[in-house]
């Protein structure tokens, strides 16, 4: 049987017959045109939820942690679940922008800006919880190593302290990375806007960007360095979040599989959240050409892989419980399966183990509606994963006499819902005033960015010239 090897050209990352100019127009259109009514509606709803969140936090600080459903065995409940959940969601952005950047994955450009913004807002939502869940928020600064007259110093062996550093570093680097990427695009908006206020604002934000060679040189280097810095953080932040659990003695927590398992789960949920948001945004803002089905399929593949990694971790937990012969680990696994929170476990199993299996099918991977549904199911599943870890493990640990059942209160639920208000308030502001796709970067992956294909004489694109080029030319925008 003769084998015919053929060079398969990768499909174009940006669909449609776009020129650089049309891409700029497509993306810059949103921040530059008047605010649509629908946006006000969405922003109003988000604001109501945000105010609800602030109210819930205010009442929490006023009255005490007791307004939540926590009890004696379960010292951590929805607050910590939400924290881990939001941090996990916050994983996708930096993974997409940093790691995929270093791996030269051009398709990332369609979603990186969007995902990074999501990351930052998700980490903001996450960061609220460890702060407000403490009993005495007014002295929370004691977790920072601030020299003080009490000669009191934080306890560096506490994973909670590691968390403080991990999350704050992650947030800072993500923010910087995002902002650096935004500089050329802010300059584009500055140049295109007719509004004086916008011009000044975008002008300040673009830090005097001129588009010079030197600007580009510094930009590319800075972006590369930040990508390098952000890459280990992608792995470290959720590793350290997992240490909150793994370093303890509690069965169901005390497990060496937690760091990789948490990172995989975080990527899984992060991609799901990006998909959820992207599939809505591409429709509303008409970005189907950039955030196209090919991109969606690639993201589905990432979800499939990480989803199966997570499923494997669940299996391993069961296996290790049996294999270790450790009765408490066996006890907690059995309680997951048939115990008081078994309903949560089976929701989790359906969402996180069964659902990703659909993604083996290309048709499903390329189906927008099903992908949208799956992305939501995955995020529900990932929430329940954290629920099982936090609550079920704590409620039913070593001493059966101390077991108690945890159930959330109105305030737990409203605080969680309120964080969506915070998230969407910022996210809608982002959609409204910032370029939601990295204009400069997406142009870099368009065929036009490979100028050797370009017949300068006829001023036409010639597909016949798709051959390796000898001379690399500088990109222009």
């Amino acid at each position: 049987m003769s084998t015919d090897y053929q060079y398969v050209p990768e499909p174009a990352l940006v669909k449609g017959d776009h020129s650089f100019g049309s891409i700029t127009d497509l993306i810059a259109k949103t921040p530059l045109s008047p605010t649509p009514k629908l946006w006000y509606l969405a922003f109003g709803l988000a604001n109501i939820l945000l105010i609800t969140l602030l109210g819930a936090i205010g009442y929490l600080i006023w009255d005490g942690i007791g307004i939540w459903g926590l009890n004696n065995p379960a010292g951590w409940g929805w607050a910590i679940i939400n924290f881990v959940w939001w941090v996990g969601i916050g994983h996708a952005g930096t993974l997409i922008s940093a790691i995929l950047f270093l791996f030269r994955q051009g398709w990332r450009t369609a979603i990186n800006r969007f995902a990074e913004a999501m990351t930052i807002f998700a980490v903001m939502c996450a960061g609220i919880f460890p702060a407000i869940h403490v009993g005495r928020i007014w002295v929370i600064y004691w977790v920072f190593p601030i020299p003080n007259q009490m000669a009191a110093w934080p306890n560096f062996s506490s994973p909670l302290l590691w968390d403080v550093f991990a999350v704050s570093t992650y947030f800072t680097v993500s923010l910087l990375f995002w902002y650096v990427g935004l500089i050329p695009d802010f300059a584009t908006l500055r140049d295109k806007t007719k509004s004086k206020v916008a011009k000044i604002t975008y002008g300040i934000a673009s830090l005097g960007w001129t588009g010079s060679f030197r600007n580009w040189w510094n930009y590319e280097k800075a972006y590369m360095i930040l990508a390098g810095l952000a890459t280990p953080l992608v792995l470290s932040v959720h590793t350290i979040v997992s240490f909150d659990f793994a370093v303890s003695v509690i069965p169901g927590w005390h497990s060496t599989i937690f760091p990789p398992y948490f990172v995989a789960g975080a990527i899984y949920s992060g991609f799901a959240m990006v998909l959820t948001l992207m599939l809505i945004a591409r429709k509303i803002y008409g970005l189907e050409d950039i955030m196209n089905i090919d991109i969606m399929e690639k993201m589905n593949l990432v979800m499939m892989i990480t989803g199966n990694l997570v499923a494997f971790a669940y299996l391993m937990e069961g296996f290790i419980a049996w294999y270790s012969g450790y009765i408490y680990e066996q006890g907690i696994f059995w309680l997951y399966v048939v115990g008081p929170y078994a309903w949560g476990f089976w929701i989790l199993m359906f969402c996180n183990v069964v659902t990703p299996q659909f993604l083996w099918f290309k048709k499903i991977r390329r189906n927008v509606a099903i992908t949208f549904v799956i992305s939501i199911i995955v995020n529900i599943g990932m929430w329940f994963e954290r629920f099982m870890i936090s609550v079920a493990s704590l409620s039913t640990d070593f001493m059966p006499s101390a077991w108690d059942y945890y159930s959330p209160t109105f305030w737990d639920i409203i605080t969680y819902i309120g964080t969506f208000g915070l998230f969407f308030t910022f996210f809608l502001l982002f959609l409204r005033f910032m370029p939601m796709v990295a204009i400069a970067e997406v142009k870099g992956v368009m065929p036009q960015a490979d100028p050797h294909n370009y017949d300068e004489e006829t001023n036409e694109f010639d597909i016949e010239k798709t051959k390796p080029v000898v001379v690399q030319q500088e990109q222009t925008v």
Partner: protein
Amino acid sequence: MSEEVKNPNYWKSLGELARNEEYEKYVEREFPENATELNDKVSRRSFLRVMGASIALAGFAACRRPVQKIVPFSKQPEDLVEGVPQYYASASPFQDAVTGIVVENNSGRPTKIEGNEMHPASSGNTSIFGQAEILNMYDPDRSRYVRKNGERSSVSAFAKFCSDHFSNTDQNIAFVSEANSSPTYNRLKDQAMDQFSNAQWITYEPFGEDNALEGTNIAFGERLRTYNKYDEADVIVSFDDDFLNPAADKNSVENTKRFTDRRRVMSEDDDMSRFYAVESTFSITGSNADNRLRIKSGEIELFIYALAAELSNSVSGLSAFSGYSNKFSDHEWVSVLTEELLDNRGDSILTVGRDHKPELHATVAAINVALGNDGQAVDYLEVPHADNQNNREAFAGLAEDLNNDNVDTVVLVGANPAFTAPADLNFEEALSNARQVIHLSNYYDETSKLANWHLNRAHFLEAWGDGYSYSGTRSIIQPQIEPLYSGISEIEFLNIILNGEQTKGYDIVQDTWQDYYTNDFTSQWNKALHDGLAGEETFSVASVSISSAFNSQASDFISNADPSEGMELVIRPDSTVFDGRFANNGWLQEQPKPMTKITWDNVALMSKKTADELGVKEAGLGKAEVEVISITVDGTTLEIPAWVQPGHADDSITITVGYGREGVGRVANKTGVDTYPLRTTDNMHFASNVSVEKTGKTYEIASTQDHNTMEGRSLLRHATLQEYRENPNFSTYESAYDAEMPGVAYAEEHGEDDPLSIFNPIDEQEYPEDEPQWGMSIDLNTCTGCGVCTIACTAENNIPVVGKREVSRGREMHWIRNDRYFDGDVNDPKALHQPVPCMHCELAPCEQVCPVAATTHSDDGMNQMTYNRCIGTRYCANNCPYKVRRFNFFNYTKEFLTGGDDPEIVQMAMNPEVTVRFRGVMEKCTYCVQRVNRAKINRSIDTNGETKKPKDGAVETACQQACPADAIYFGDLTDPESEVVKTKKNNRNYLLLEELNTRPRTSYLAKVRNPNPKLA
């Protein structure tokens, strides 16, 4: 009262003080104004008033010292150092028995009750009621003033009324009083009976000793008190007798002490008694049994007769039973018990529950005598104050008299019959027929509201009194503080009625004691005050023989024996609120009931099988809502939540009384269900053929333990005595799991002493040589599960009451909890008790995870909690494998201490040596660090700084001190001679969750049972 220095009054006694006008005014005033003064910390005036009063009253030298009210101590009173608590002996009365106590006073405030080591009924320990009395006294809901027809009046007005009203000595007077052993009280009682020609006196207790006294009357022809010395018996058989429970036996502390003394097994060569329990409800006493048989309470009668019949073949005196047989005659228990009792003649005790019929008490007494146990382990005591009448019949007679309009005046000394009287007597209505009703009580309660005169009663910590212990040791009750609400004691009250004038309790008591001490009164009185008891003297032991009348009566009651058909209802006093008198005590409401771990409610207990038949589901983890059933007895229906009690007899339901009160106090109101309506003169304690139905309603129960089995985890290790002898090391990890402890092999291979830990602070943390190293061990063999450790800890460590809602959310604050596990068949399990305080791990998982280092290790090896540093992440509690940390989810202390209109009052009950914790911080057992540090400082002073290691026994934790079973040992581990080191070297010693390598400083001595192999 004004703060000015004006006509300084000098007074010797409160009697003198009472007669001055200023005092009258003070009496008239309500407390809050005083409270404001008390609140002013720098007010010398208010401080001295409280101080002066307590010294004048409490110290034996103080009675003579004139206390100037205005000027501060120009001469420091002897022994008074500010900040150092003072201790005064007194006695705590409960029904007609007092227990010797020592009261800790801080700046004139009694703050903690401890047992009096010299007193035989206490031996230094207390019951949960004894501990809770402090809070009873500082109860802001107690009645604060005299009421005449509901309107505010005064004691002097009442005295005026009395001198007029009681001048007619021919009127029909009925005195209804609580049981009281006080010689002074009984002297006044005798005086009353002399003074009023048409008076009757009824001692009314809803749960009293009447049947037992009546029983000995049948058996011996004399009303004698049964005094079981459980330490002197090799075999104990209890028929529904919950003698370890303070709610079921007024001598429970001594009983526990004696019972556990005989069961303390410190090596495999030691012997222990064998205890058989035959009962319906699974009681704490039953949970300590070696062999337990569950039968309906109604069948106990048949069982006892069957046993008597079997015994009658071998011993004389039980001829009435010979040849008798019933369904239990072939029961294996009857033959086994017969054999066992005959083998241990003279060394056994048979005892029957207080509430059972006199006939059963008579039979059991006869068996005891027939076996020669009397004069050995069982004594029959002549109690001088025991009435020569059947008080239950007399009380029913009073209701009839009232209905027939034959009573002019009813004087109620304490007691709350409007709430507790048998429902069929309709006492509330009957009482309205009396022309005058006078009621002395702690609360403005159900009965007070029907009375013409309500007098607010002084608590025993506020007033002079006296009393006899169960076995007859006489004590003086000395007040620790001036009455908070100017109440009067029962003896002052009776004195007003009899003499028409106010006399101070101090004088009245002294009048009585003049008879005891005819010469050298002062020094003898002072000695009795100081010691808390007047010598060794006890009630005289009667020499008894089975009366000839007994055997003829016996044949009657055998033939009348009720076969107990259908569903049975057992009505018992509640193990925490008793007959309702403690219903307003937050500590007791929050104290988990020993067997069910329920707080704040009463329920209907039933076996799993009965519950299944009724279709009632079991509560459990995540199922706090339980089903409500309706119980109908003789046409009266009551709805009450149902609770599955493994080990309960089938076809039997137990309910407890004392709940569902109205208009009494903030704590008591609307808590639980009032079950008294089901109680009638015929069915005082038991009813048969009751109908029970599911209502379909549900009700939330706050239980502190939702899961009742150990899930195969070897947390509470136990063995039979035989197993212990075969394998003295049965409590090790290797024996418990039949596997080597993980990590040990690795450690040995690598030449390390202990298993590895990734965090190994022990290597870095060298304990200083000059520091003691504290450790605790808890002997599960003697622990009865009574829970007094919990309430003693609550009292000592200012632990707030959080309420039912918070408990039901799993937020109880108790620093030491009492775990109760069921083991074995769900219908007939064994119950095991395990107190769990902080383990003070050397490698504490909590310390490792706190981000701000708020919980750290001290030089003396304690795991400490720094409240001020805590930010409240709760990570420490999560990481505690023993789950002993407690979080202040709300500002519980503030709510507890500043709630209501008189916040200062409950605050006075707080221990000034222990910080109260605010919202958002973690707390837990401190090994009573305040006591430890005081002992260290004292030791350092005593030795001129040479050492700060207190002598063994110099520090007792609150739980240890209160424990009547002496199950808790605490001391310095660096002292090889200390008791705690000895117990830790015992082969039964084991560490809880040892495999986690937390290296706890608290360890346990495994439990040993001594079951009869024939009944296995």
